[in-house]
């Protein structure tokens, strides 16, 4: 990705952060707010399904959650938004990226996976890449 294509700020970009851990959720939210995003946070898949709408452009979800995990939720999102342009971009947040995690994410139709915690620079380049290409799967 060329540096001159990276956006530096994302004013008003509607994003959902789903993470059952309050600290991780707050940090990810703080990071996205710092980049100008309009952030909604949820702590469970049930809460997520109540708030998601076509206005939300990106979803960052922790894949390891109790109950309905991120993988199952991704499948449900695809069922809910049948047209790709209406569906938010789905990015898995995980503390451990390995080949299996990446393949699981791809299999359920996620658009990317990133290792958390995410730095400011990394999140900036991730959002820029996602908004331009709608996909982010880096080479393992």
């Amino acid at each position, binding site marked *: 990705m060329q540096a001159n294509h990276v956006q530096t700020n994302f004013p008003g970009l509607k994003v959902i952060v789903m993470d059952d851990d309050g600290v*991780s959720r707050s940090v990810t939210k703080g990071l996205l707010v710092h980049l100008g995003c309009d952030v909604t946070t949820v702590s469970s898949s049930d809460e997520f399904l109540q708030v998601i709408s076509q206005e939300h452009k990106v979803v960052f979800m922790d894949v390891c959650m109790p109950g309905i995990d991120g993988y199952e939720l991704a499948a449900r999102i695809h069922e809910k938004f049948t047209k790709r342009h209406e569906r938010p971009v789905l990015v898995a947040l995980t503390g451990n990226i390995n080949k299996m995690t990446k393949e699981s994410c791809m299999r359920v139709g996620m658009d990317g996976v990133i290792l958390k915690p995410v730095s400011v620079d990394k999140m900036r380049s991730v959002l820029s890449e996602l908004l331009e290409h709608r996909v982010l799967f880096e080479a393992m």
Partner: protein
Amino acid sequence: MEVGQMQRQWVDYTKSLFLEGLLDGQFLQLQQLQDESNPDFVVEVVSLFFDDSEKLLNDITRALEQPSVDFKKIGAHVHQFKGSSSSVGAQRVKNGCIAFRNFCEEQNIDGCVRCLQQLKQEYYLVKNKLKTLFAMEQQIVAAGGSIPMLEISF
């Protein structure tokens, strides 16, 4: 003590936390997110970390005391603790959680008990150090100074 001296002490103290491995680069990332619109971001997030951590440690302690130990439940608590400690840059706590999780997977109760002791030590150490750091910051601000920008290369 004059402001400049307080600021130098703050810089030296903060650097020591990184040199001792108590904090890693993620803590610097948190500081980057603190600005005029979010002036207390670091203290708020770290305070949340303190509250959640103590609950998690209590839950893990009780779980290990049960006649039939639920290693899956303990593993889930440790996984969460790893995530939250990683999010605030508490490196030695995070590393302690990684070791603890391995013992949970092996269902090694002695290993888990040892890890819990170690984890408590690391947690309370970083908690005390961070509380001292925040107190120093309050003193600097009360004296009319600002918190210096810290540059540390890894």
